[in-house]
């Protein structure tokens, strides 16, 4: 008896049996591939989402949490889908004209916000000025451990005392009466109202927060939607708030699936909107495909860039930075690896931003010149360089294909071997901020459409977020002037001037701007894709789904 033949035929037989068993099970459980998903509920929008890290607005700092928070909670002011500031809980935007904004004698500025009449939390409790004051003070409370409150609320008079535990209250926030709040900031900053649109300043229910340790699992907000169900790792269901102060949303509920491959779910009719993965893009963009009719794509306010730590060898030498930038053929990476899914960036500022300059010039790909620059540098060429470690965020088994392609281009065009190091994202951000890496690849998504959130934040030598430790007094002056400049035209000019200097110095080398690629069912109307994370579900309406 030949055992080998037996074993092999046994394997085949088992496979057949296994398939047989499966078929039986499938038939027994009903066979139809949709039966395990919940039936389509009338007026329900079904999306895929990511598990949020937290639903506490005071500590959230990531897009995956903010997506839900902006729907459930509101602040005094908000950004509309076109990223213009609008009044939300406040009746109107405070301006000098309507008396809401007053510049005081000592240079401080006081904003007065009047709450809309009849504002209610989801549990129908009225919203008062005290709730607003409490929420902002809670974000500043050291016990809340918010890591973003200082950035977004730090301009308020008395904030630091509260954060350091030296004060019970923030002196710059006063609840004048039940519906009036005043906020006083240190100096006149055009961007302060933008900062108030970030979740850190959103209003939470004081009684709930103080009584219930587990309140983020069923938060009581004021937003257009309330949390109906959060099943860990599976789904989040939001329910429309019929009493919403800006008008009840059209969709009755929104269901986010937290696992599963979106395009497969889309094709089987289990979701109404799906993001398109790189490997599916070719198929979706093919006009012959059915899916092509549902395909939509557009720009987002985001930038991928290489950062060169200007404090570390060899990137302290601007010539080396330029050489490394010029050795990268972004066009080829975009077309060969990303299949044209992302547009190449030649500027730091992003299309759609006020000061975006289409004529900005980042260093262009030129292998010859790159090599020449490296030889002209203090290191005299590839052989003189110290070992270089290039960092990216990630924990998977493999590096991002773009990163590997860049490393290859450096090896090929400059003759420099660069090692890739991966770090899990939280550690990665920390290490970038503390200057542990020589160079890194990173992305930036705008929090609000103001250049402050891009240039002052990253290139002012005093900024804690200056991740490349870039220090150029000329740029500092330009950026600080721009920050205080109230004339929009001159402000834009100052930023554009600073941008070109930065591009030539290459602390950042812009790689790509971001695009979204979506499939949207035809019956989903007014599905807006704002450039930043802002409230949008309440604008959507559902037509009649195809049978």
């Amino acid at each position, binding site marked *: 008896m030949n055992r080998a033949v037996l*074993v092999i035929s046994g394997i085949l037989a088992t496979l057949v049996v296994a398939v047989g068993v*499966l078929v039986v099970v499938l038939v027994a459980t009903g066979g139809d591939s949709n*039966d*395990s998903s919940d039936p389509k509920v009338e007026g329900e929008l079904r999306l895929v989402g990511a598990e949020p*890290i937290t639903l506490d607005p005071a500590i959230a700092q990531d897009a995956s949490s903010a997506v839900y928070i902006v729907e459930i909670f509101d602040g005094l002011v908000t950004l509309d889908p076109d990223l213009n500031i609008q009044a939300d809980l406040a009746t109107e935007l405070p301006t000098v004209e309507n008396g809401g904004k007053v510049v005081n004698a000592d240079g401080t500025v006081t904003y007065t916000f009047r709450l809309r009449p009849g504002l209610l939390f989801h549990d129908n409790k009225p919203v008062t000025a005290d709730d607003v004051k409490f929420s902002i003070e809670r974000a500043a409370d050291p016990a809340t451990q918010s890591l973003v409150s200082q950035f977004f609320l730090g301009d308020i008079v008395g904030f630091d005392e509260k954060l350091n535990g030296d004060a019970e209250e923030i002196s710059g926030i006063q609840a004048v009466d039940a519906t009036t709040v005043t906020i006083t900031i240190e100096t006149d900053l055009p961007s302060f109202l933008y900062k108030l649109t970030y979740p850190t300043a959103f209003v939470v229910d004081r009684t709930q927060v103080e009584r219930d340790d587990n309140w983020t699992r069923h938060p009581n907000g004021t937003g257009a939607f309330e949390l109906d169900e959060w099943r860990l790792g599976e789904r989040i269901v939001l329910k429309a708030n019929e009493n919403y102060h800006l008008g009840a949303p059209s969709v009755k509920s929104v269901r986010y699936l937290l696992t599963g491959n979106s395009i*497969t779910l889309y094709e089987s009719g289990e979701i109404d909107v799906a993001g398109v993965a790189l490997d599916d893009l070719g198929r979706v963009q093919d006009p012959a495909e059915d899916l092509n009719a549902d395909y939509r794509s557009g720009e987002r306010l985001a930038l991928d860039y290489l950062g060169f730590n200007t404090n570390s060898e060899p990137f302290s030498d601007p010539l080396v930075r330029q050489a490394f930038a010029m050795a990268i053929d972004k066009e080829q990476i975009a077309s060969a690896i990303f299949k044209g899914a992302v547009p190449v960036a030649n500027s730091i500022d992003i299309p759609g931003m006020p000061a975006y300059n289409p004529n900005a010039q980042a260093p262009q790909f030129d292998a010859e010149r790159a090599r020449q620059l490296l030889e002209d540098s203090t290191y005299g060429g590839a052989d003189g360089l110290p070992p270089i470690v290039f960092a990216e965020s990630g924990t998977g088994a493999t590096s991002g294909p773009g990163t590997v392609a860049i490393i290859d281009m450096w090896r090929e065009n400059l003759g420099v071997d660069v090692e890739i190091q991966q770090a899990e994202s939280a550690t990665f951000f*920390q290490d970038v901020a503390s200057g542990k890496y020589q160079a890194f690849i990173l992305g930036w998504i705008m929090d609000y459409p103001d250049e402050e959130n891009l240039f002052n934040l990253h290139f002012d030598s005093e900024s804690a977020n200056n991740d490349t430790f870039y220090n150029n007094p000329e740029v500092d002056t330009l950026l600080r002037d721009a920050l205080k400049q109230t004339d929009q035209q001159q402000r834009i000019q100052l930023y554009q001037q600073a941008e070109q200097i930065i591009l030539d110095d290459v602390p950042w080398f812009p790689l790509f701007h971001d695009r979204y690629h979506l499939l949207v069912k035809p019956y989903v109307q007014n599905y807006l894709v704002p450039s930043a994370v802002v409230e949008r579900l309440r604008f959507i309406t559902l037509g009649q789904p195809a049978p």
Partner: protein
Amino acid sequence: MQGLLGYVIRRLMWAPVVLFLVSFLAFSITRFGPGDYVDILAGPRVTPAAEERLREQNGLNDPFYQQYGDYMWNVAVHHDFGESYTKYRGVDVWTIIWPRILVSLQPGIVALIIAFTLGTTVGLFAALKQGTWLDPFSIGSFLFFQSIPVLVTLPFLVLIFVVKLGWLPATGWGGPDLDVGPQTISLGIFSKHIILPALALSLPSVAGVARLVRATTLSVLGEDYVRTARAKGLREWTVVTRHVARNSLLPLVTLIGLSLITLLEGAFFTETILGIPGIGALAYEAATGRDYDIILALVLIIAFAFVMVNIVVDIAYTFIDPRIRLDGQGQ
């Protein structure tokens, strides 16, 4: 039975020692890893002062032994495993882990049942057909699956049943609701979501069960009472069910411990590949996200389960089969 009692007591005394060493080891690893809670918490916008404040608040400036002591005291006395620091920030660890244990148990139990029933059937069949081609054939076919890691079989199953045939759902988990404390989980055991993970998890264990059943059955078949039964003229079916099966299945108890390990390790891959919200996926998430208290709690709970299962199996086995010598004392 004096020896047996002493043995049981000694085994039970050993458990806390193992658990102490395991917890100490795991705790040390998390504390000596790069970056502490605060490094991990700190986003790009944190100031050094805020960082120091957090460090003090979380007791990270205490000496190492005190941190370990505090942690274990909270676990043992207050049933408090700390809280999540990155992914599920601020949420109590036990609240995160408990529903996930219940999710992971479902494919685990189904896989265990499949492995043992299928394995026993194949093993008995092979033993009864000893000497014919069916014997090596039936066992050999499952040997293949025993060798191939879940990591390799599962993508193939996904490729065939989800991507190509579209018979199974593309999402990882779902089913009827079950409320557990503050969370609700899905009973995937009553839906098609159970099929892929249970299949992938059970396949590697079938051959082990089958071989053990075959070996013990062969030895039982040679025993006097079986020959007596046959000599009495009992039908073959009766002999097999009454005498052979009962006596040859007892040693299977020992395999349960081993199968649990296989199942747990397989869960890392079924859950990460399929997106099932169980402890395998959680452990992976927590380890890569350095969510220290979650990893610690998981390692402790898993180690506790292992130690207990092994003790129970050992003790059960000594009751089942008195021929087994305790700690080699039989000599």
